[in-house]
Every structure is written in C-alpha cells, then in structure tokens.
C-alpha cells in the first residue's frame, strides 16, 4: 500500500456517506408517515420516462464525430437493440444481442 491508510479510509467514508445522502434526501424530506405532497407525487409519477431518456443520453455523451470509430459503433449497435426489441420484445435478447454486436464492431470492424 503506497497511499496513506487513514487518508484512504477518510475518502472512502466521505464518498459513501455523501452518496447515501444523495439517495436518502427525498425520503428524508417526503418519506414520513404523512403522504408526500400532491405535487411531489405527480413529479414522482411523471419523472421515470424523463430520467430514462436522460440516462440514454448520458450513455452517448462521450461520442465524438472526429473519427468514425467514435460514433458509428454506438449508433449501429443501438439500431440493432431497437430493431431486436421491436421484433422479439425480449429484454435479454435485445441487451445481449446489441452488446455482442457492439463488441464485434469495436474489436473487429472499427479498430
């Protein structure tokens, strides 16, 4: 171990506690015995599709158009996922198939 033990413990605890805080805050604010306010319930119900949309964008955020291999594999594999899912509606097949195609694309085709 070349990094100080106490320092490492401190950082890990800090990261763990702050992460837990970010997850727990909505529950600390609205998770009591009383039901959450109506507007919070509304937002809670409507948020999931918006959050998933943002998470999809998050996965593509590092794409760049400078080189073909930095965007085309993601696009092709994503099209494959969409087509597979429209066709069979099987989550495992769509995720597994799309990932396999992506791996082949970046390891064999666009090196």
């Amino acid at each position: 171990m070349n990094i100080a033990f106490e320092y490492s413990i401190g950082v890990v605890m800090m990261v763990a506690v702050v992460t837990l805080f970010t997850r727990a805050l909505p529950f600390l604010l609205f998770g009591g015995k009383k039901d959450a306010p109506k507007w919070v319930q509304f937002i809670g119900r409507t948020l999931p599709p918006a959050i998933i949309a943002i998470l999809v964008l998050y996965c593509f955020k590092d794409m760049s158009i400078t080189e073909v291999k930095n965007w085309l594999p993601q696009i092709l594999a994503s099209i494959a996922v969409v087509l597979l899912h429209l066709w069979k509606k099987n989550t495992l097949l769509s995720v597994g198939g799309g990932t396999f195609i992506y791996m082949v694309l970046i390891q064999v085709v666009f090196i």
Partner: protein
Amino acid sequence: MKTLQTKIYNNKNTLLFAFEQSIPVLLGYLFLGMAFGLMIQKAGYHVLWAFFMSLFIYAGSMQFLLVALLTAGVDVLTCGIMTLLINGRHLFYGLSFVNIFKHMGKYYPYMVFSLTDETYSILCALKAPEGVNEKKAMFLIAIFDHSYWIMGSVLGALTGQFIPFNSNGIEFSMTALFLVIFMNQWKEMKSHKAALCGLACGILSLYLFGADKFILPALFATVCLMVVYYIQNQKRGK
C-alpha cells in the same frame, strides 16, 4: 387462508422472477465491477478494499473517479463535493419511490441505499405477474444487482488480468438496457410529454454545459418544467 405450500410456491416464483429481471444488469455490473476491481488493485489496494468500497459506496461512475482521486491524493472535502456533483442525480430518483419504499418495512433502508441508475430503471418498469410478491421481488432485485457489483469488483481485484476473452465494449450492455427500458415505457405511456421533456432538457443541457456536467442541470430543468405543468393544470382545474 394461504397454505404453507402456496407460500413456498410464491417465494420460489418471486425469487425466479427477481433473478430474471436482474439478468440484464448482471452482465454490465459484473464486468464494470471487474474493471473497477482491476483499477483499484493496480492503484495499490488490497482486494478487501475493493470489496468494502463496492459494499458501502455502490456507485459505479463515482467509484471509477474514486480511484483517480485517491491516486492523485485529492483532499477529503473536495472528494465529498465531487461526490455530490456526480451522484446528485440520485436526489431525483427517490421522488418516484417515496410512497412505495416506506411501505416496505424492514426493506426500506436498504431500498433507499441501493437505488442505483440501473436498479432504479428496472424497478420503474417492474410489473410483477400473478403469484409473485412484488415488494419482495423489488428487494431481491436490489440485492442481486448489488451482489453482481461486489462480485465483479472482487473478481477484478483478484484476477482482472486473466479475463479469458477481450471484454472491450461489454459496457454497452448498460446503454442497451436503458434503451430497452425507454422503449418499454414509451409504449406503455399514453402521453410522451415526460419522455420528450427529459430528452429536450438533456440535449439542451448537453449543448450548454458539455458532456461532463449536463446531467444535473437536465434533471433540474425537467423537474422545474413538471412543477410548472402541474401548477398550470391545477389552475385550469379550478
């Protein structure tokens, strides 16, 4: 009254259902976990560190950054602020579950702790069939996901160098999972306003703030727009 036999049957169904739901996460967490384990081991940490970090922190992108922070010797307070910025998105996840988790009794604290991007996405889309205990299934999915992450980290720290095949690109399974869940929700929802609102805020925020900082402003703008929409609707109702 339920007989003991139907109860056992339900438990088995629930376990199988939860496992099935968690399989898409298995691939991603196992290999991303291994990548993390390998990195932390290369930074000079024992496998036990990998285990405890993944047990107590359990946040993918943050743990990768953690390796960099530790090797650079960044001070503890700055690490805390970085964590707040990276994981601040979690603040918005809980909103969808405040009224659900609190009715889960002894599972409640763990459900809050283990709400990662992937577990959130799976739980949002969850539809338990007949004969499956939904609350228990939610808990089991959370546990399964967490255990994949821990297993991956430990394996990576122990044997990362020896992965028998080239696993480059396996991280795409997370992208694929989010895409599939997005499609499922798109089909289910009568109104696509929310999804389009998220997409628009996300793209605008990417443009304004860049790839590394876009997610918090995007989520914040989405929530603001939803509050405005809600207030407008309330006014119209009166």
